[in-house]
């Protein structure tokens, strides 16, 4: 009896390992290799558009001593953190409302939140031009109400427009991950907390948040990754003032044809976001598992 058990458990572990093989294969092919190539590239040099395969950290020094790069990087981080935070602050309570208050129409609500994801990213970003532009929705509404005499121009082509658009783009991601965490939370835990004399706020602080903040953090991370590296949004609604680090990176790969510098800037961005994510994972960690 014991023999057969150990045999079958071995077989399971082998088949488990086998089932992980494609994952490993794709990770190596699609994640590890490109990133390794990027790191290697970042250590090479480009002289007048000609690639020189000499190892040096000159690209990093150049990126860190360029005042434009530094200020754009700072702005990128601030805008990305801001957009991710706002998106989470909107999505988490919405997810809570959908999970707790809706029963029959729950699926419909989830569908409505994630339906924008089915539309092209480009179109979603572009549509904000129609909202924020000089003859956009907001301006024409305000004008027709007589609240302003001439169109407001600060909205479009600014960091604010980028921030707003990135927030909008990030909301479905934050919603889905918050939703799945909140939905897994058993009602009996909330009842047990209330039963123990906890006010609704105490229940949120001591039970709901600790058990769902990881879900919120995953949404936040997705939002952060999306907005840190994005170059389409700033190109379309950011204007000159709304340039993001991603825009600088893509310039290196296109206009200036300096791939090594572009790679170095990418590595810098990657490390900075990784750092934020590591800190986030650390502070949102919760021990114990739901049954």
């Amino acid at each position, binding site marked *: 009896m014991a023999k057969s058990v150990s045999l079958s458990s071995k077989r399971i572990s082998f088949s488990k390992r086998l089932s992980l093989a494609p994952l490993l294969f794709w990770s190596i092919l699609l994640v590890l290799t490109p990133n390794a190539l990027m790191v290697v590239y970042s250590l090479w040099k480009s002289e007048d558009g000609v690639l020189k395969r000499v190892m040096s950290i000159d690209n990093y020094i150049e990126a860190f001593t360029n005042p434009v790069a530094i200020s754009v990087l700072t702005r990128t981080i601030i805008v990305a953190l801001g957009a991710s935070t706002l998106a989470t602050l909107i999505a988490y309570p919405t997810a809570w409302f959908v999970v707790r208050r809706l029963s029959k129409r729950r699926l419909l609500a989830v569908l409505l939140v994630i339906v924008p994801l089915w539309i092209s990213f480009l179109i979603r970003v572009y549509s904000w031009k129609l909202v924020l532009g000089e003859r956009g929705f907001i301006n024409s509404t305000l004008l027709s109400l007589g609240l302003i005499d001439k169109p407001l121009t600060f909205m479009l082509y600014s960091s604010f427009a980028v921030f707003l658009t990135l927030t909008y783009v990030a909301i479905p991601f934050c919603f889905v991950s918050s939703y799945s965490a909140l939905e897994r939370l058993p009602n*009996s835990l909330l009842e047990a907390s209330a039963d*123990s004399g906890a006010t609704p706020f105490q229940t949120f602080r001591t039970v709901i948040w600790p058990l769902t903040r990881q879900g919120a953090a995953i949404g936040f991370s997705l939002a952060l990754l999306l907005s840190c590296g994005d170059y389409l949004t700033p190109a379309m609604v950011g204007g000159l003032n709304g340039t993001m680090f991603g825009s600088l990176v893509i310039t290196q790969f296109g206009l200036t044809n300096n791939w090594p510098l572009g790679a170095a800037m990418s590595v810098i961005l990657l490390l900075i976001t990784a750092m934020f994510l590591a800190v986030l994972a650390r502070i949102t960690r919760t021990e114990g598992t739901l049954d």
Partner: protein
Amino acid sequence: MLDGTKGIYPAVVRFVDVSKRYKDSTSLAVDNVSFEVYPGEFFSILGPSGSGKTSCLRMIAGFEQPTSGQITLENTNLVGVPPHLRNVNTVFQNYALFPHMSIEENVSYPLRMARIKKTEIQQRTKEALLLVEMHEFARRLPHQLSGGQKQRVALARALVGKPKVLLLDEPLGALDLQLRQQMQIKLKDLQREVGITFIYVTHDQGEALSMSNRLAVMSSGRIEQIGTPKDVYFRPKTYFVAGFIGRANLEPGVVEISQGNVVGRWGDFVFPVAKETPLGPCVFSLRHESVNVNGGAGEISAVGVIRDIVFLGDSLEVFVFVNGLTLVAKTQMQIGSDLKIGQDVIVSFKSADVVRVDG
């Protein structure tokens, strides 16, 4: 506050004409239920699933509000009071321990929410853990415990705040048989030790009969009978109670007047019944173990023939056709071992054991 009634009715929990209809439901989950639970009592609500017993408990805890009627805790109104402001605690069927808190943190939770002094919290948490013998596990997390251990922690958490009433929602349902029997004894001891009123909801008649001071039997949202375990077992009032608790012969009969006496006629059996028994057709209930085959006491007796014998391990169920009725007798192995199908036997029982139940 109904101060005027305080001295007269010492009830801790009182239900007055309580009904509950859930949203989107056409039938009543709880249908005009009234009962009282007295201080220090172990009170059980027994019924099959869907009988409304858990709804009653949840209305005391505050997780549900009654559609109509009145619920009071020590003569103060409970209707509309949110759960966190009620001085009652619940032991949940699935334990509902907070998975991210240690056992100690789980048990101290009600005290921490009440913002009691740190030293007192420590002291009382320790006492509660000692009470359920879980002090050695204080630093563990719930997922590191077995079902029985989680159950004890849930008990400690519910008792630590010294509630007026402890509500238990099928707390032993998820445990295996042996552990369940151990916990029954523990729970009863614990209840005596802490002196807190327990309201215990279960579908298991064994638990209800063995632990309770009194129990209410529920079916389809209504209370069928309230009484001591002995009362409910031996003097069932309704057909449902007689059939649900234990095993009983339930056969139609009639109560009539014969030669100036009120008698019950059951098949061809005729026996005296109490004078105030309502006349007319009815159902009589007689416990399987109250029927004797070839021996035992009982002033009513007749010869019958054995139709079937079912082996139950420690006992036999003997199906006897007698006086136009098929009665089942539960017989000890030693007495019944030489019985055979088709054999003639003398069936006897006490007329006092025959109970008229409402259909």
